């Protein structure tokens, strides 16, 4: 019987000594949807995924994958999962076919069905013509594709991808995102972690924003954006230290939040500020006026419509990539 809930976590905790990597994470994902975990490095995304993949045992709480408990039915959970690790995990001295054949056996495939499935996966990942070549001769993109292909061998109910686009070129990234959409359209549930809000926005049915081991927001893209209402985000670069100016801006009508980042390299000052406002057209002249009055020159301005980055900033006071 097909379980409607592909993922259900219940108050998950994971502690490593004094470090609280995951703190009370509760999530749900329906079968056939794409759920993204969005958050900066250290947010607890990979730890959460490791618990779901039965690599780590939760300190407290439990998670159900296709109705099976990660605590008590790890083999059933593993059979339902295909995991694509963040780093490429292949036997590079073996061929693509030998890799797929070996990993297929680890998922319990044998004989003719295994060979057929290997052929199918090679076709899907576009490596049929390179199947006998040693993987260490492959390009980074080809390795990425094979890395994903391995997780598809046993046609898993749930595909977990841990930041699969980190450090790759735009073309390969595009191919991976398109492949994930195709797999999802074929009925596969996908759990996707990323710190790129564009990817989460493009792929996901639901997004869980994580920070410091907690889910700080959960919903569809539209639902999340509504958290910050119709606020616009204005990014400004300044020529001088902004302490007084920030106070002035914070006091300006229509301004909701002001954050600043100051770096100083070889006597060159780099000050960048982010201001969340109701209406950029109305507020922006006031911001320039305050800056002029305090003798601070604004060297660049960028205005953004509300998005997940704005949401994260609104919720944490930090950017996703800070």
């Amino acid at each position, binding site marked *: 019987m097909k379980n409607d809930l592909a993922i259900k976590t219940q108050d998950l905790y994971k502690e490593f000594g004094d470090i609280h990597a995951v703190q009370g994470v509760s999530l749900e994902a329906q079968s056939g949807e794409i759920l993204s975990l969005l958050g900066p490095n250290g947010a607890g995304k990979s730890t959460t995924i490791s618990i779901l*993949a*039965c*690599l780590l045992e939760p300190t407290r709480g439990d998670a159900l994958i296709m109705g099976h408990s990660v605590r008590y039915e790890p*083999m059933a959970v*593993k*059979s339902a*999962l295909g*995991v694509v*690790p963040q*780093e*490429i*995990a*292949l*036997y*590079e*001295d*073996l061929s693509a076919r030998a890799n797929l054949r*070996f*990993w297929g*056996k*680890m*998922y*319990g495939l044998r004989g003719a069905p295994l060979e057929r499935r290997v052929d199918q996966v090679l076709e899907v990942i576009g490596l049929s013509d390179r199947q006998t070549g040693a993987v260490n001769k492959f390009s980074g993109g080809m390795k990425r594709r094979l890395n994903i292909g*391995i997780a598809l061998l046993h046609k898993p109910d749930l595909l977990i991808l841990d930041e699969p686009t980190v450090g790759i070129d735009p073309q390969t990234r595009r191919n991976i995102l398109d492949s994930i959409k195709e797999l999802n359209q074929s009925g596969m549930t996908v759990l996707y972690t990323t710190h790129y809000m564009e990817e989460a926005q493009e792929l996901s049915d639901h997004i869980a924003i994580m920070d410091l081991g907690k889910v700080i927001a959960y919903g569809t893209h539209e639902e999340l954006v509504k958290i910050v209402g119709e606020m616009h985000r204005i990014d400004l670069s300044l020529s001088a230290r902004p302490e007084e100016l920030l106070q002035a801006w914070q006091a300006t009508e229509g301004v909701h939040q002001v954050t600043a980042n100051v770096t100083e390299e070889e006597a060159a000052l780099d000050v960048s500020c982010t201001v969340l406002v109701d209406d950029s057209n109305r507020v922006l002249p006031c911001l320039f006026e305050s800056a002029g009055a305090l003798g601070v020159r604004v060297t660049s301005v960028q205005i953004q419509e509300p998005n997940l980055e704005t949401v994260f900033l609104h919720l944490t006071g930090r950017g996703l990539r800070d």
Partner: protein
Amino acid sequence: MKLLDIAFKDLYRSFRNAMFLVFGLLLPLLTAGLFYFAFGGSGSGDSEFELPLTRVVVVNLDRPSGGFAAGESFLGILRESIPGVLQVTEARDWATARQAVDHQRAAVAVLIPAGFTTAALSPDGESVLELYQDPTLTLGPGIVRTMVNGFVDGLSGSRIAASTAYEQISAQGVVPDPRQIEAVALQYAAWVTSLAGTDLDQAAQSLNPSLFDLEPATADGQQSSGTVASILSQIMAGMMVFFVFFTGAATAQSILQEEAEGTLPRLFTTPTSHAAILGGKFAATFALLTVQVVMLVLVSSLVFGINWGPPRAVALVIASLVVLASSFGIFITSLLKDVRQSGIIYGGVMTVMGMIGMIGVFTAGAASTPAAVRQAALIVPQGWAVRSWQLLLDGAPVAQILVTVAVMLVAGIVLFATGVLRFQKRYA
């Protein structure tokens, strides 16, 4: 089944790995091969071993007495005993013979004095055989000296035979006839002479060994060749143990390598039990070492002619070596945090341990080595492994080998159990 899949995958990768082929098979054979060729390619008692030609100049002033010529007999022994090793020529006088040695035309000169036969046959007779040798040479003159001693011993035996005959005849109350006594001495001397060129090993077994001191330089130099074969066997055994322990550790290290490369965590995400994953990797270590040791034993036997001993005993020692080296590899790898630490352990600790274990090989030819030094090798597992091969090569009793094998197996089981527990805890 998955356990075997993992083991086969690891074995396949190992056999494709140039490092294993070089360090696991090539280097031990190469090291033994260097010694093999350094010793003139002599690995067994059956192969040819070239001793340098020794030129001997003999001045024979002796004359026959009673139909027996001791000087001539000795010349015959010199000429026929070691053809190709001794080249015997005669000189007219002692001065000429010595001159030949002085000008390095001969390695040694022998003077058989006049009246040598008469003195040999007489109960109270005395005669002196003189040797004059090139002081820069040792081997050739040593062989000649040994042969002279042996011949003189034989003549002494002849004299003893005559004395015994004299006493026995006197004891019967009969006055001994000098011709009878001389006949006994001649009979004995003829028998000694007849031994020249025959199988002296057999004769030595049936007679007084002191008479046949020639044995160390028997025909074809088999004794010397046997010594070389023994040294070569010891070196091969030491090299085998040294490198097999490295292979054991390096193969077990693949667990850490897979952990670093991410394939081990990925394996843990598949529906495969931890026991099958670790068991597969351990099985690969055992299998690889078995292949390595069997190949080294076979190849060294075929190429260098090393006789390792009775097949069953060899199989037993191979099995215990594989168990010990594999288990040691698994144990020591379980102590490491990551692959980076393995460089220090393998490059330093294991090399030192290997050297300590090979003390028995280094001191094999030094009889004066204190027993405590030899025993020191047994503080490391490699020492027990070397000892088991040495016992096998020395033809030690099975019971003695079994004790060593038992120690190796028990140590192996303890190390294996400890290593497995540590890995299980680590990946729980």
